[in-house]
């Protein structure tokens, strides 16, 4: 029997779930022999089902499989939950992947056809709206200019205040007891959120944890303060800087460029087979929601490498609370696509402009040794000194723990320190067994944060491992 979702695994379906509870409920319901399923069917292009559980009215659900194969999440369920996909849609997907032999192959019923037609119309409208948004009109340019000027003014004011704050810290000295208080940093971070510079807010928030790390904290803290000061000085000259440098400054400030703004720049668009080398998911500690006790903003960095071009690309995603990230790709997955890069002196951040294939299991790529990676980084830094994370794919490195200091070393002894924030050190060690493996990750100029590994031709995603 031909698969309804070729190449899909249960794990991939789970990845669509908005939270663990939904995935679990979905799994629980995913039993086509259960009498509550009144129909579970597909014509190969779409799938539909009727589920009659404890509610009065049965739930009808449908999924556009063609779209889903291209990672477009098009589904619908008549249940009233705010979660998307709901447990019923997840159950249907689990059944399609796990028990295709129990799915009835049938002609599309009228209610599914109607929904597909509606969806097609909505998709067309969405596409038109997107196109409209991308089209640059004189009115839009004028409106953007006003918005731009307002935000720039706000950021300038915030940075001027920040400059004085930094100077005061150094005047009093880092040994001042208040420097060790989280509140000291967090309150300033909150001011930078108000100044619409969330990137700086996150940066300041992360500085708050440096004095708590141990005895040698003056140096790393001063490094960060110094770099932040340079950012403020650079921003003062914003108007006279080249457009790409302006874009780099905006990126570090958290003043992210919208996709339709990219058309104003001559940025590269590269068609290639892109393989995910690593994934990082974390929380952004600057959102107002979080300070109000609500669930905060999540961020995900998916690193890809072009098979032919050898280019690295970063897909940066944000999502609130339980909502899903737009990109669902794990280390080892690949896609043929055209990647559009955001403007930068050293373009890394990108978005998928056009997909030419479904997501599939990628080939294994060759990494580079430590020195080659460091050279690439030095080159990138000379173009863009604000790069915060730079992708490395380290070939043949061995995780080692010397006196509680974790490193990744090559057989000849060359090594990089592993970032202290990386929690899966023991798992990395267990994977290697003391032998060279390929490890992908992010280099921040001082330490390496692993985001994926390849062992015995198997990709490992550290994000699924519990915190150790």
């Amino acid at each position, binding site marked *: 029997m031909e698969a309804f979702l070729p190449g899909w*695994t*249960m*794990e991939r379906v*789970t990845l669509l779930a908005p939270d663990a509870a939904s995935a*679990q409920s979905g*799994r*629980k319901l995913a039993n086509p022999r259960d009498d509550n399923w009144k129909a579970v069917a597909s014509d190969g292009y779409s799938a539909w089902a009727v589920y009659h559980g404890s509610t009065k009215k049965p739930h009808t659900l449908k999924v556009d499989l063609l779209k889903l194969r291209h990672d477009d999440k098009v589904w619908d369920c008549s249940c009233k939950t705010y979660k998307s996909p709901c447990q019923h849609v997840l159950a249907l997907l689990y059944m399609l992947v*796990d028990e295709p032999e129990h799915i009835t192959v049938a002609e599309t019923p009228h209610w599914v056809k109607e929904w597909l037609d509606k969806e097609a119309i909505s998709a067309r409208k969405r596409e038109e709206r997107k196109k409209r948004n991308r089209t640059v009109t004189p009115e839009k340019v004028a409106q953007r200019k006003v918005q731009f000027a307002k935000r720039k003014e706000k950021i300038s004011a915030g940075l001027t205040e920040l400059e004085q704050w*930094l*100077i*005061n*810290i*150094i*005047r*009093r*000295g*880092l*040994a001042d007891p208040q420097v060790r208080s989280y509140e000291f940093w967090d309150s300033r971070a909150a001011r930078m959120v108000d100044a619409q510079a969330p990137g700086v807010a996150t940066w300041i928030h992360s500085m708050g944890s440096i004095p708590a790390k141990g005895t040698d904290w*003056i*140096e790393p803290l*001063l*490094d960060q*303060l*110094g*770099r932040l*000061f*340079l950012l403020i*000085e650079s921003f003062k000259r914003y108007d006279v800087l080249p457009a790409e440098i302006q874009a780099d400054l905006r990126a570090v400030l958290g003043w992210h460029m919208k996709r339709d703004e990219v058309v104003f720049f001559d940025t590269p668009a590269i068609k290639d087979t892109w393989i995910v080398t690593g994934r990082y998911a974390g929380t952004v500690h600057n959102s107002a929601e979080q300070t109000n006790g609500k669930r905060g903003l999540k961020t995900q960095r998916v690193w890809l490498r072009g098979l032919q071009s050898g280019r690295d690309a970063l897909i940066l995603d944000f999502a609130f609370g339980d909502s899903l990230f737009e990109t669902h790709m794990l280390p080892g997955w690949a896609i043929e696509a055209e990647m559009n890069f955001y403007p930068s002196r050293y373009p890394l951040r990108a978005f998928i402009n056009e997909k030419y294939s479904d997501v599939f299991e990628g080939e294994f790529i060759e990494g580079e040794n*430590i*020195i080659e990676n*460091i050279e690439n*980084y*030095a080159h990138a*830094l000379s173009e863009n000194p604000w790069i915060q994370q730079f992708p490395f794919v380290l070939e043949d490195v061995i995780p*080692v*723990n*010397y006196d509680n200091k974790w*490193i990744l*070393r090559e*057989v*000849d*002894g*060359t*090594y990089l320190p592993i970032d202290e924030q990386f929690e899966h050190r023991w*798992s990395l060690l267990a*994977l290697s*067994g*003391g*032998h060279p493996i390929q490890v992908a990750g992010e280099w921040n*100029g*001082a330490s390496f944060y692993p985001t994926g590994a390849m062992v*015995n031709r*198997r990709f*490992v*995603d*550290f994000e*699924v*491992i*519990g915190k*150790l």
Partner: protein
Amino acid sequence: MAGTLHLIAANGTDNLSGTINTRDETLDYFLNEMQNSDDDLAARLLRGAGLLTLREQAGYIPSNDPRPMEKTIKPDEYHQQEHYSPEIVGFLSKIYQGEYAECYPEWLHYVALEEATFPYEALPLMLTLATWFPITQALTKRVMGSRGRWLIDYSGHRGWYWAKHIKPDRKPRLSKYRKYEGRIIVRLQQLGFRRLPLEVSYELRLMTFPWTEVFSQGIVRTIKNMFGRRDAMTYDDLARLADTVKWYIHPDVRENLVTAFSNYNQLNETQAIARNLDALLSFRSAMLDAFMGE
């Protein structure tokens, strides 16, 4: 040079007295920059520190450790064994984060029974879980293999010392469940007449019998009989009962067990117990499926 900059930064530029003398040319350059400019001294120090950081980052030279590599394990072991879904790491993580720990001994039991292996990245999780649940230590020793022993030996991890002297255990036996079944059902029947005493509950927990469907059906039948009696059971009784049986119950009896609890009365607390049992048994089922590769 950096040391001097850090010292000034630590003490504060307001507390700086006299001039700083150094033989370091780079520091001289920065200090001149700092002292000759019209800017505030603190601003100059920050600028100097920022430039220095960038310089160090761009010119980063990886260190070298000449020590020879030791403590490796034969790499061929991994290749010879069949692996099942790495998804199991997600289930173990969930247990590690404090949910559905009741499912862990059973899963481990099957791993030992099947003489199966698992993704190596799960090993530290399993060793830590065995530290938390000593009941699983014997089975962990059985399944962790040479890679696990290597990891413990390498780590010197205090929490993992329980596994330091490892003797391969015998294959777990499943044949004695009837004996256990008889004992636990007698215990459960006592519940029908009086509240479950703590020591009985404890004794039930100590019975590490397998999770067979036959045995579990017996348990569910007994519980249903108990619920059919007139003696009203309090919420505490119900909670303790659920807590006792959930460690050993087979997922195939899920529907019967959950229905028995949810039909007992309509109180929210009872319904919550039923829901929790349902969620636990779903997790157990999904975890076993991931292991069996279904």
